[in-house]
């Protein structure tokens, strides 16, 4: 196992980690990997650096490779730094039936970036995602914890502006 760096969860998060570990039978603590990766991403700057993943490995007493292979499998984990707001626009069929493609073009145009890029001011990263179980309020995007639904080429400007004003 690698030398542990000086990364550490806050006291409060460490309590939470303990509680999470207690959810699984003894010896099956690896089950906590996904919950811990979510926590780590939230606490250490919105992405999983190799150091962060190694830290999670030490908590669970597993090999770092076991963390890397999981972190790279799941689309939710950011493996590189992102902008302050990550716009995750749904690009799947049902959203497209209600204009997701035009919406995406509009966002690219307004932010001056393409999908996968981060704006120069570091405010926005634009991503596409697959169906987020919100097809009845399509088109939609997720930003952080929140779903923005029933978007169109007009109201998207208000939404983007609300982030800029924050």
């Amino acid at each position, binding site marked *: 196992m690698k030398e542990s760096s000086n990364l550490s969860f806050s006291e409060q998060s460490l309590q939470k980690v303990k509680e999470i570990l207690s*959810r699984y*039978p003894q010896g*099956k603590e*690896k*089950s*906590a*990997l*996904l*919950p811990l*990766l*979510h926590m780590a991403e939230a606490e250490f700057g919105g992405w999983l650096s190799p150091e962060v993943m190694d830290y999670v490995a030490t908590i*669970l007493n597993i090999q770092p490779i*076991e963390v890397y*292979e*999981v972190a790279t*499998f*799941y*689309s*939710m*984990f950011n493996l590189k730094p992102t902008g302050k707001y990550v716009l995750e626009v749904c*690009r*799947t*069929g*049902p959203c*497209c*039936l*209600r204009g997701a493609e035009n919406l995406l073009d509009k966002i690219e145009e307004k932010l001056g970036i393409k999908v996968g890029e981060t704006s120069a001011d570091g405010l926005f990263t634009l991503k596409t*995602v*697959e*169906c*987020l*179980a*919100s*097809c*009845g*309020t*399509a088109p939609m995007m*997720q930003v*952080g*914890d*929140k*779903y923005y639904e029933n978007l169109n080429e007009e109201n998207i400007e208000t939404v983007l502006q609300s982030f800029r004003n924050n």
Partner: protein
Amino acid sequence: MGKKLLFKHIDVPGIKDFTVYRSKNGYEAVEKALKTMSPDEVQEEVKKSGLRGRGGAGFPAGMKWSFLDRKSDKPRYLVCNADESEPGTFKDRYLIEHIPHLLVEGMILSSYALGANTSYIYVRGEMKTPIKILENAISEAYANGFLGKNILGTSYSLDLYVQPGGGAYICGEETALLESLEGKRGNPRMKPPFPAISGLYGSPTVVNNVETISAVVPIINDGGDAYAQIGIGKSTGTKLISACGNINKPGVYEIELGLPVEEFIFSDEYCGGIWKNKRLKAVVPGGSSVPILPAELILKTLQGEPRLMSYESLSDGGFASGSMLGSGGFIVFDEDACIVRNTWNFSRFYHHESCGQCSPCREGTGWMEKVLHRIENGHGNERDIDLLVEVAKKIEGNTICPLGDAAAWPVASAIRHFREEFEWHIREPKESMKRNYGIREKSILGA
């Protein structure tokens, strides 16, 4: 108005909270079961109800429960599948957001029936708000003595936890879900052994969908026979349908199984007809994985019978002229929707979501995406359509998990029913880039 079982109280203000839920007969089924029924009697009611899995496959829930290895000395687990990522499906999220205690109550009943003392609800990681709502409902249930040690003073104890996923459609497949819950990549397992014998941590496990588990609540309250009275034939009870696409009123509707499809699409109680006064072109009735049907075949079977919202009626005609009820993700296409573009979009989705373990799925989905992309973008050639059919055939039935089939069926059915539209894209590349193919006159139906 059809009968409501799951959504009876969904509009009650504050129904998310324990006290309000409780005041609407909430947790009475738990009291009834734990105090007056044995676990086997609970299972028996579920069997009698005829309830079928609402996650997509429609397998009878009571029968699945009866396969659980009760002789094993290992602990048993109930795992709720709340991964909901099948395009077009958004009923489970809706249920959890609006009436989370129904799922918690169903989890207690089902865990009791199965003899599980630890259960998990695996929720897709992106659903951060539903996760918070559910966790709050669970802690309310603990605080009120419906979870934890010796529930209601009985000898039965249950711990219930929410487990977040990480964003991977494949983790909705039950064995991939179990791998993911064990902290691994979501690679589906070879079956057998089935989870009922060796599931989570190698223990006997039942995996059920959110809606299936929630339906156990009315079944215990009113009895399995009463549930079986609702619906039609072997499609008993009610079903949540999430309707989306080009309709006036997208949303989640609880219907009695057996409702005519035409009524569902055109009545104001449900979808409210096609938007912008357009005409109906096609429907994918059960989530992106099931075959697409043109207007004439979704409204009527090949024999001219009205098509009903039921497992049997929607699959009437097999894949030649039918489809499936699936997850209840009801996707409606108007006359201006491009079938080729949508088929390409779905193929792209499956390629993106293939876990890559088996080559027919990994390579085949990539091929289908590529070929469909070139047809849609005006570079198709005449052999492409048969090539697609060929690739779809080679995937179907040759993979570890059903994602392969799920990727093949939409392509095969789109070509089966809309072949001329594909041919037109190839024949008229410039025209097809400019405008939509439209609708065959024989499909003019609706309004």
